[in-house]
């Protein structure tokens, strides 16, 4: 008989714009401890394998996986780090359990992005170094944000011959992609603004959200163009926080007496990194959703999915992703939004958590935040934002600028 994989425990910290009182390890410890208590497991005895998801440059030190075991209960145990979004960690756990190698696996991802003083430079480091990065500005940064040795008045000396003093912020790429999306789909800037309005409103009903706000389309439209047509309020602000899941094989879950939520489908896909040959229509989302739908036996996603969380780190991304994963026809997502179809009582409740626009951009924990909301909803624990009779839900992740990679996970309530 085929082994079924389910989520048996979830834990998360509060999400805050800054967390100067705690270390990143303490954030991880807290979310792990909460998830282990929720699942009723002792990590030193009951968990067979530990997975974290992180990117060295965002963390601020090299070889991140070496810094992991102590704060998650994994010292001298099978432990590895996936360099990617948290959903990739869920997929890795799924495979470890499915093969029969492991019975109980924990997955952790987090953001301590407020520790990073030069995020723009780090993301520019993810552009092709020979053909693309030099176009954004000087090879060396003209000043060194965090170092006391270099100030704006007395900057670090430049390397390489260039007269430019400033580097363009890497989110310019989202501005270009948004322009392409609006033109090819017929979506308007106002419809994208409504995504911000909706998600920041949804965030009022999610206690972990940090960026809830009552704003109007006019507020978003009135915020300044940073990368036209992308405006300041179209961009999700950064947030710190950690999320941990415990996954287990069905039999173990039943022995522990927890109400399991099944991970019934998973898919992932990577676009070419070359801007020159890459599409601008989130093909990574289309491909990964097709793989996940097939595994989960979903033939009509619009009908079969009760709730979805899609990446909305830039407002247009929510609409683009809904179209890419087959929940809206090309160019229709904006209209569906305006007609209320993406609201709690609509046909496809989307980002009820508040999404990245309402909670904050938690970087490699973003996909886990999406999955956390789906698990909470399928458990029926979402209080005022609870979607009635939610039995099947989808979490979609994108790795952010400048990547073209993403993953999709489908979850089902036990007995569904």
């Amino acid at each position, binding site marked *: 008989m085929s082994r079924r994989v389910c989520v048996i425990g979830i834990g998360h910290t509060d999400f805050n714009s800054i967390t100067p009182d705690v270390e990143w390890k303490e954030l991880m410890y807290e979310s792990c401890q909460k998830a282990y208590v929720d699942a009723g497991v002792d990590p030193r005895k009951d968990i067979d394998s530990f997975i974290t998801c992180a990117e060295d440059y965002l963390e601020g030190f090299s070889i991140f996986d070496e810094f992991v075991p102590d704060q998650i209960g994994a010292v001298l145990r099978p432990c590895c780090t996936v360099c990617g979004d948290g959903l990739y960690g869920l997929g890795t756990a799924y495979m470890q359990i499915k093969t029969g190698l492991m019975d109980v696996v924990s997955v952790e991802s987090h953001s301590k992005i407020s520790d990073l003083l030069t995020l723009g430079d780090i993301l520019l480091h993810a552009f092709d170094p*020979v053909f693309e990065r030099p176009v954004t500005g000087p090879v060396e940064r003209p000043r060194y944000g965090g170092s006391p040795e270099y100030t704006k008045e007395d900057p670090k000396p430049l390397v*390489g011959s260039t007269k430019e003093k*400033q580097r363009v912020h890497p989110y310019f790429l989202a501005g270009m992609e948004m*322009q392409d999306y609006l033109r090819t789909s017929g979506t308007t800037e106002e419809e994208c603004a409504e995504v911000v309005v909706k998600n920041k409103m949804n965030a009022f009903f999610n206690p972990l959200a940090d960026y809830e706000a009552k704003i109007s389309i006019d507020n978003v439209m009135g915020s300044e163009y940073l990368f036209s047509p992308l405006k300041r309020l179209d961009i999700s602000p950064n947030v710190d926080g950690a999320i941990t899941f415990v996954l287990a094989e069905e039999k173990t879950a039943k022995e522990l007496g927890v109400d399991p939520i099944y991970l019934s489908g998973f898919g992932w896909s990577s676009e*070419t990194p070359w801007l*020159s040959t890459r599409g601008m229509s989130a093909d990574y989302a289309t491909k990964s959703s097709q793989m996940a739908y097939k595994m989960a036996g979903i033939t009509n996603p619009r009908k079969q999915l009760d709730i979805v969380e899609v990446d909305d780190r830039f407002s247009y991304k929510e609409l683009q992703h809904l179209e890419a994963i087959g929940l809206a026809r090309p160019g229709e997502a904006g209209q569906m939004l305006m007609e209320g179809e993406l609201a709690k009582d609509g046909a496809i409740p989307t980002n009820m958590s508040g999404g990245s626009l309402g909670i904050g951009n938690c970087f490699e924990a973003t996909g886990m935040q999406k999955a956390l909301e789906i698990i909470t909803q399928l458990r029926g624990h979402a209080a005022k934002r609870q979607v009635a009779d939610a039995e099947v839900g989808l979490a979609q992740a994108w790795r952010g600028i400048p990547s073209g990679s993403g993953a999709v996970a489908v979850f089902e309530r036990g007995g569904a």
Partner: protein
Amino acid sequence: MTFLEKQTDPTTPMHWNGDMQADYFYSNGVAGDKFFKHLMKKDTFLASECPKCGVIFIPPRLYCEDCFCDIPDENWMEVKSQGIIRANTTAMIDAHGDPLEEPVIMALIDIDETDGAMLGRVKTEILDMDLCGLTVKAVLRPKNEREGTMKDILYYEPY
């Protein structure tokens, strides 16, 4: 927070200010060297065509990402350093979030006679936010100042 003790005085949390030295020497590679060494002498670009599917790559590559096959030397070609804007944006802030001294128009430019595109800066008097479809040509450094990097392409301008 699962700890019994927490910091409650906001004036006391301390930190260590870290500094990461990370400097690199990026090889252009075989395809990159060919492209940039050509650009030091000529005002045109080099592109490479997949022998199987016929896709013409710029920036040029030694292999096709679709067919996963080699692109041989005889499949390289010279193309004009001009094209049509596929997508553009006007960037207002720098990597630290501070205003740029002057807004920068970043664009992805579909290069004529190829299936590829180059990322570039555009200088124009046109004030429209949307420059898609505009034909632009590369403005290059004077030949005696070229160094064999992307900096040899100063910007693109309408023609």
